[in-house]
């Protein structure tokens, strides 16, 4: 009995409420609560009815009190207020499910379910939200349609209430248009699981220390073309073993707000592990302008990189315009002194250098000779043995001849300084994991890199990478499925989850630009203008013709009659199996009377089919969805009996 009643009563509204409850459960950050709420939903719709009815004013007061208590209790139990309030609304939903709620209460309950889905949108932003969104897109319109139909005295089956393809496409279009175009004030960036990391990038390099694989943690994503070395920090002080950054390296030398964007390229960076970067904003080339959703203005440091005055507190997105190539600038006497300062090196090192660069070469040629020798005679190796700190440079050059990028950058910079060439060690990243679908780079902790920069009179600071696999690091090949997954993840998070005001402005600009270009193309040429006029004229003519000669659509009386013949014919065929044959002279009602006389066991079903046939065939009255379902069910029962 309970099963029959439940299955009969269940409608889209029940499923919308279930969706809201599941979202509320997910908002508690666990599957268990979602399962508990789902179980409560199941229990509520199967509970015996009717529960004690509470007068509406009393119920409103009780609900208000419940919400207020939930709001007050939230900080004491350590959950955010809206999650607490939504939990109070779960109780309301369960009460609505357990009683035979009227239309007004169902409207309110549907609104509560939408609220809970909105709460879920703040906690669930992975693939589950896509399912939730599809559910909401189907169930909210279906619920509203059912409620509106009930106002007109019509009952619609849940499946029939779901949007058809055309309507679903319209709903999707308007939802997308709203999402893209509706102005929004602010969207805080989501707390990505990718950015949950402690610690940060190293601030000094000890030549003697060994280095292991830095791990696979995603630090940031960068979009753009021909991305080179992304610098974060430069080290200018060398004590013979360790490179450090002097305070002058953090000094502001300018702000990235230049309007000169000639030959500039655009990059967009999504910082995921902000704690790894601390104050650094990885950039390449000479930065001209910078924008982002950060709350403090970045500065340009002496090493040409961008830095925040204070560490980033949350994952952020920034984009910048840069001019690739060397950093062109002059050196003050103080800077020249600082960048050429180097402790006394051993005779062995001096001899090794001399044997490499020889005599009579210019600074640039000397640097290239050194880089070339490192690349040809040395080996890149992570986890190379630790060197003695007092003779690290000598041991590296003359004995070990292997190590990680830090050793090569340190050694090259030190050797350049011994040749009185201003040099420094730069820390940053070298992106190599390009996504084949999205064209963006995933930059992980293992892509951290160190290289040297040397200053030459006519060129400025030039990047020199002595690491044997430095510039020739092959682009990483990843599995297609993994690449696709990362691309989908990238699109989902960067284009949907984090779609904010800045993206809206960019999109609006793009659309305006495209439309201007299209208009210029169309109206600027005579052929385009003629084509536009012809198109508009053709559309108008087609529309007029369609209005004048409407197509015979479904639902005309002829089609209804055909439909009626169809189901009645099936009915007669089924009865023929049981030797109940309708004579040609019998009317449907006479045949029905004959069936009754013969005590046909499924007389009620036969009556349903016959009556509806007469209605459709002779009264030309359309069938509602419920009536069609009744006919289908009756025919099924007759078929089962005949089998």
């Amino acid at each position, binding site marked *: 009995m309970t099963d029959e009643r439940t299955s009969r009563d269940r409608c889209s509204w029940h499923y919308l409420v279930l969706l809201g409850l599941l979202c509320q459960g997910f908002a508690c950050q666990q599957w268990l609560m979602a399962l508990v709420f789902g179980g409560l939903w199941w229990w509520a719709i199967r509970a015996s009815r009717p529960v004690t009815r509470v007068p509406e004013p009393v119920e409103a007061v009780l609900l208000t009190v419940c919400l207020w208590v939930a709001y007050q209790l939230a900080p004491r139990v350590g959950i955010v207020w*809206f999650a607490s309030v939504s939990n109070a609304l779960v109780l309301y939903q369960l009460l609505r499910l357990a009683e035979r709620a009227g239309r007004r209460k169902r*409207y309110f309950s549907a*609104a509560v379910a*939408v*609220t809970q*889905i*909105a709460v879920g*949108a*703040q906690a669930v*932003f992975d693939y589950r*939200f896509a399912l939730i*969104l599809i559910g*909401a*897109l189907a169930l*909210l*319109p279906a619920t*509203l*349609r059912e*409620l*509106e*139909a009930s*106002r*007109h*005295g*019509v009952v619609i089956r849940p499946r029939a209430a779901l949007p058809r393809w055309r*309507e679903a496409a*319209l*709903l999707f*279009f*308007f*939802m*997308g*248009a*709203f*999402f893209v175009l*509706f102005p*929004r*004030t*602010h*969207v*805080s*960036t*989501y*707390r990505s699981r990718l950015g949950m990391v402690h610690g940060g990038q190293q601030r000094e390099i000890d030549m003697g220390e060994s280095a292991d694989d830095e791990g696979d943690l995603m630090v940031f994503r960068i979009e753009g073309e021909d991305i080179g070395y992304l610098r974060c920090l430069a080290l200018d002080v060398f004590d013979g073993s360790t490179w450090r950054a002097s305070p002058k390296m953090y000094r502001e030398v300018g702000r990235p707000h230049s309007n000169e964007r000639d030959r500039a390229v655009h990059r967009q960076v999504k910082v995921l592990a902000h704690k790894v970067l601390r104050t650094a904003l990885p950039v390449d080339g000479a930065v001209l302008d910078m924008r982002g959703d950060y709350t403090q203005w970045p500065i340009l440091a002496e090493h040409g990189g961008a830095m925040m005055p204070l560490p980033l507190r949350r994952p952020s997105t920034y984009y910048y315009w840069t001019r690739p190539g060397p950093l062109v600038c002059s050196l003050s006497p103080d800077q020249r002194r600082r960048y050429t300062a180097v402790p006394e090196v051993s005779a062995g090192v001096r001899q090794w250098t001399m044997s490499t660069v020889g005599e009579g070469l210019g600074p640039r040629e000397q640097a290239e000779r050194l880089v070339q020798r490192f690349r040809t005679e040395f080996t890149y190796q992570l986890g190379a043995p630790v060197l003695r700190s007092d003779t690290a440079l000598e041991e590296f050059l003359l004995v070990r001849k292997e190590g990680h990028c830090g050793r090569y950058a340190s050694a090259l910079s030190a050797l350049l300084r011994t040749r009185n060439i201003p040099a420094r060690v730069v820390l940053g990243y070298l992106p190599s994991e390009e996504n084949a679908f999205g064209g963006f780079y995933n930059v992980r902790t293992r892509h951290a890199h160190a290289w040297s920069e040397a200053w030459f009179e006519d060129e400025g600071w030039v990047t020199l990478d002595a690491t044997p696999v430095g510039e020739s690091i092959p682009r990483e090949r990843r599995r297609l499925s993994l690449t696709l997954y990362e691309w989908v993840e990238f699109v989902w998070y960067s284009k*949907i*989850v*984090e*779609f*904010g005001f800045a993206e809206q402005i960019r999109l609006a600009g793009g659309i305006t630009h495209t439309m201007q270009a299209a208009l210029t193309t169309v109206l600027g040429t005579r052929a385009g203008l003629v084509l536009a006029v012809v198109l508009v004229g053709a559309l108008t003519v087609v529309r007029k013709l369609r209005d004048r000669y*409407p*197509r*015979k*659509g*479904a*639902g*005309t*009386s002829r089609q209804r009659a055909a439909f009626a013949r169809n189901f009645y014919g099936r009915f007669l065929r089924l009865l023929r199996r049981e030797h109940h044959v309708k004579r040609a002279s019998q009317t449907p009602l006479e045949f029905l009377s004959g069936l009754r006389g013969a005590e046909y066991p499924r007389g009620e079903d036969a009556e349903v089919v016959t009556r509806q046939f007469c209605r459709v065939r002779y009264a030309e*009255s*359309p069938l*509602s969805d419920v009536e069609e379902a009744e006919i289908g069910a009756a025919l099924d029962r007759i078929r089962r009996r005949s089998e």
Partner: protein
Amino acid sequence: MITVTWAGAGFAGLAVLLYMASMQATTGLLFLVLGVVFACFMVNAIGAFQSARCLMATPPKVLRGTEGEPLREPWRVSNSARRNAGMASVMSPWGVLLRIAAVPAGATTRIRPVLALPSRGVYAYGRLRLASTYPFGLVRFEKRMDAGGEIVVCPEVYECLAPPASGHVPVLGGGVVGTRRSPSGSYFHGVRPMTAGDPVRLVHWPSSSKGQGLMVKEFDEELAGRIAVLVDCSVEEGAPVLDRAARAAGSVALACLDRGDHVDVVDLGRGELVSVSPFVDSDVVLTALARLEGKGPGTFGSHLEEVSGRLGPRTALCFVLTGAVTEAHDAVVCRLVERGRRVSVCLPDSVGALEWPPEVRVFQYGERSLAPCG
């Protein structure tokens, strides 16, 4: 014109709240949820516009009904578009006249109105509007309907005693049994010997077979009287007592018709007379009563003489008065009695009767009752 329904207003309010909440949102996904609500509004607006535009509701020229009951005649509703339409209502100044749940594409159907007007009268279609909320009920699109015609709401009738009629004449099927015999009728009286001129079909063969000669059947004579129901309209238009009087007049007229009398219904306000023969559809009587209008105090006798001339001299008169009995009423009644008319008077139950001659039958009517006075 597009308006937002109360349900739509509720969801719009919710959307505003969610938009305000989005200022502190941690993701942009909230805008997708908002987008779903917005999409429902937009699809609803388009659907309501198309539905209202393609639905054609054609009412009957005269839509008849009884006060307090839904109107009877169905409307013809057709959907000229290639997509389904429905969830529409025909709105009138008096409420929702018609609810159109669903009309398949290209179909025509007939739908009964749902409006039940509380009081009798004639309501011109005038300002009808067709409003559709298809398919979600958040947004309503309304368009004006160009429908000519009217709704005639007849007074409700109830069972009551019929006042006495006069001027009886033989009518087959008449409700009064006369003293004479007739060769046909409903009430078998007996048999008599056949005389010259009696048709053979009257021969009563069982009696004739007993050897006393041919016997023919005789029936009691059936008589039908004549009565005129005169409704006093000397009250202000819209006065509730006029509705009660119309109900009483309708009930009296139908009781008389049931008895087999010939009934004339007279609107004393306009001097219009409607004659109804026995066994004829009574709608014409009720329609005439639906059209009664109050003409203001002092108009009781304005058309009385004129109407009296059109009534038969032996017709019984039944006055349905709407206010206190005045000397004018008294004088008219006494004069008619003196002339030999059979007169009865129906008074509102709030009004006391004067001392009239005993020949005058007095009734009192209430909201939905009519009973002899005293």
